[in-house]
């Protein structure tokens, strides 16, 4: 049904619209800076397999400081850790993991949250009562407890991280969407769709949700940042992705028993987390600023 309405839509292509909206970003230096930070990590993560890096899991020489020379004549740009693994290589491969799982988890949380929100907001009545009740129960749990329960019982896999993030984020997304839909459903075009006998499904997916996208894009950006922190935190607590694959949070945790002896082991992944989260937050701020101007 969704495809049907698009079929006649021969308006300027999606690509030219994208170019236009990126052009809008130029009005906010903050957004540009945020986007650059994010793109920095995205590009590194994509290029990781072709960059001249050591194997992230290979034990080379332990406790090398940054810029020290390797036995094979190479250079440990950021040093090595206690097991002799190259930190630069681990941070870059770690970025891959964080970006993939943060994005997947946020997208899934969004799909669930938006569906819940649009159903609660548009259909109302018992649907609203039940969905709002479930959301309130979930929101009343401290998030960290929720994560620990889910991961310890179901095991530390990527899928379970997605599940945990969805449980924690979907109620919040549902509330935003529900609020937006309560306002949008009183518009005449919704009334028009009802008077031509459209199904509730069509009205929710085609008429309502596309018009809620403005505030949701900003929120999604912020939420990507939160999810990045969440994944790092889970890694730090030992609930993250299974070893030996590199994980920013776990990299920090491994430094802990070593104290100040190998500070670079903690500083590098910590800086990586901060810069990526900062990127998402600044982009969200910039987007909000741009949308307010119009």
């Amino acid at each position, binding site marked *: 049904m969704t495809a*049907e*309405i*698009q*079929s*006649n*839509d*021969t*308006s*300027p292509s999606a690509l030219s619209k994208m170019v236009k909206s990126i052009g809008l970003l130029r*009005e906010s230096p903050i957004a540009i800076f945020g986007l650059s930070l994010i793109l920095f990590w995205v590009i590194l993560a994509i290029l990781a397999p072709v960059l001249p890096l050591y194997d992230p899991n290979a034990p080379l020489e332990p406790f090398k400081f940054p810029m020290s020379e390797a036995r094979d004549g190479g250079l440990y740009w950021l040093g090595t850790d206690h097991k002799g693994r190259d930190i630069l290589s681990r941070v870059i491969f770690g970025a891959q993991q964080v970006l993939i799982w943060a994005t997947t988890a946020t997208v899934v949380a969004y799909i669930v949250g938006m569906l819940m929100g649009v159903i609660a907001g548009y259909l109302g009545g018992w649907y609203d009562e039940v969905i709002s009740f479930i959301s309130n129960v979930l929101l009343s749990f401290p998030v960290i407890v929720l994560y620990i329960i889910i991961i310890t019982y179901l095991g530390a896999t990527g899928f379970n991280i997605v599940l945990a993030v969805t449980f924690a984020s979907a109620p919040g997304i549902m509330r935003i969407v529900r609020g937006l839909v309560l306002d949008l459903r009183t*518009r*005449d*075009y919704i*009334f*028009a769709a*009802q*008077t*031509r*006998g*459209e*199904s509730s499904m069509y009205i929710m997916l*085609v*008429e309502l949700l*596309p*018009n809620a*996208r403005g505030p949701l894009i900003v929120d999604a950006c912020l939420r990507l940042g939160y999810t990045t922190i969440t994944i790092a935190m889970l890694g730090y607590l030992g609930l993250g992705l299974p070893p030996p694959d590199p994980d920013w949070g776990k990299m920090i945790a491994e430094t802990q028993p070593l104290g100040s002896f190998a500070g670079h082991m903690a500083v590098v992944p910590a800086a990586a987390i901060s810069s990526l989260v900062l990127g998402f937050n600044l982009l969200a701020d910039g987007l909000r600023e741009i949308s307010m*101007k119009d």
Partner: protein
Amino acid sequence: MEEQTPILECRNLCISYDTRGGEIPAVIDFNMKVMPGQGVGIVGESGCGKSTVALAIMQYLGSNGYIKSGEIFFHGRDMRTMSEDELRALRGSKIAMIYQEPMASLNPSMKIGDQLAEVPLFHEDVTVAEAKERALALLEAVKLPDPKRIMDSYPHQISGGQQQRVVIAMALLSKPDLLLLDEPTTALDVTVERGIVELVKEISAEFGTAMIYISHNLGLILDTCDRVTVMYSGEAVEDGTVHEVFDDMKHPYTSGLFASIPLPGADKNERPLVPIPGQLPLPHQRPKGCFFGPRCAFFTDGVCNTDKVPMRPVPNEEAHTVRCARFEEIDWAEGDHEAVSVKSVKSGKVVLKVRNMKKYYEIKSSSVIAMIRGDAVKTVKANEDINFDAREAETVAIVGESGCGKSTFAKVLMGLEEATAGEVILNGEDLANVTVQKRKAQTVGHLQMVFQNPFDTLNPSHSVGSQIARVIRKFGVEKDPDKVRAKVNDLLDLVKLPRDFAHRRPRQLSGGQKQRIGIARAFAGNPAVVVADEPVSALDVSVQAAVTGLLTEIQNELRSTLLFISHDLSVVRYLSDRVVVMYLGHIVEQGTTDEVFSPPYHPYTEALLSAVPIADTSVEQKQIILEGDIPSAVNPPPGCPFQTRCPRKIGSICETELPPLKEFQDGHRILCHLDDDVFESMEPVIVMHEDGDVVAVT
């Protein structure tokens, strides 16, 4: 008089806004003088800069607006040289402003008495008791019922009309020299509006307050002002006394405005409305020379599009100035725009029959007290006993103010709600209890709607073409993609829009264009009945004429029935063949347009007719001002629904018994207790003086 200094004077005022696209001049070279006790009107369509002038006078232009050049003198002092402290002392005490939305001007979390008392407490050295006393006195002056109770109420506990009265009282508390009214009655119902307008007139006479009255409604300006300035695209185009401008207009735009509003003399067959073609230019697209040039019928190349046109005085008329390069040479008869052609079409067989239709809503109160008392469920009688017929190719107007049940009726008709009782028969099929999902696609297509708000009527996320195409497919008119596209083009042709509009997004369209798309969408399924819910009330006057013209033209061509829901009796009289007047869920009067607009009247119809602002100096209206507000449908008065406000109430029978339906001529019915001889002795409300003769308008 000439010795007096004006209270306010604007000299060569230019106001600009800084935006993304650079500087946007909102007001250009604006001059105005307000003398003590004078009422000055500013008239213009949205975007002409009239509100910007008011904001500049209050020095409230916001962060991106500024006065580029020119001066504003208040009592001879240039306001631009005043400090922020001086301005603050001036605002609210010497200059007061009244806005369109009363609720936005009142603090919702403060009692009205306390809010009012704040004004003298802030500006003068008075005690709290004195301040409250003055507040109470002014609430009486603005004729609020039971002012003591209102002092103790919160804003949400009183009606919109009462709120606006409170705002006016607040504005008057510090005895201002100048009152700025920015569309003060636009959000109110007509009968309530009439009360406020009378109040404003009385107050300016009583307190000697000078007024600047900003409105898009020429009729209201005629009622309230001595002088008027007509604005177009940031410029004043004509300025003079109300009588000079209304009777002897010199600017083609002013004349176009008057030709596009349905005055009592207009007739859809003999004297049709003449819309102004085109639309208001955006500030950065203003043409060279005269800004009105591209839309003007008297445009002359080389004269109108070269230099900036100055304001020039009209010979022999003191203080009447016009911004037109060739107003002396214009022969008004020559270059008139093409009138909206509406052929008179004979109505056919009955298409829609509504019989004893009732719609009650149940409101459940969840409060514990209500449950204990056993009245947890309240019934709202939104529609009571609706009976009427609509024929093929006929226009039936449903007239009433907010809360009269016209929207509920539309919902039942469209199948969004089920009727509680009665029948709604469309082409022989009873639809009263068939919701839209259960109706056949063809039936749904046969009953379509044009909505009120042009900014809401189209989904902003989809292109115009895809939205029309969806309707075509949904009603099963066409399935094949090529044929659907062809049909979209046909419909765009029908509403006189270029075909490439199909690719546009709604935000790229003006209000009038969106409303045209709304009409195209309604006519996509070859409807038998089209319900138009105030289709033009949100549009500018010059566009209104074009859209109503288009609507009736298409209707005539396709022989559809049009149910025209409106509160604007001028438009109704102009457009419709028959009229149904509703009040609090009841039909109080129905008949042909001539019958309803001439005596005998239902007392409510009589009051409605006297409340319509008419922008014609030769028209005399009887003054009937209704007391109070429309009662709530949750708690309607017993007996006659109109008894609480009826100026012709005869006694206790009105309070106890629902009036009988009196039949006058064939089909003209009035729901009233009044005796036949009272009906016979009723005089027409609107009388037109033409060449000395008195002609009753029917």
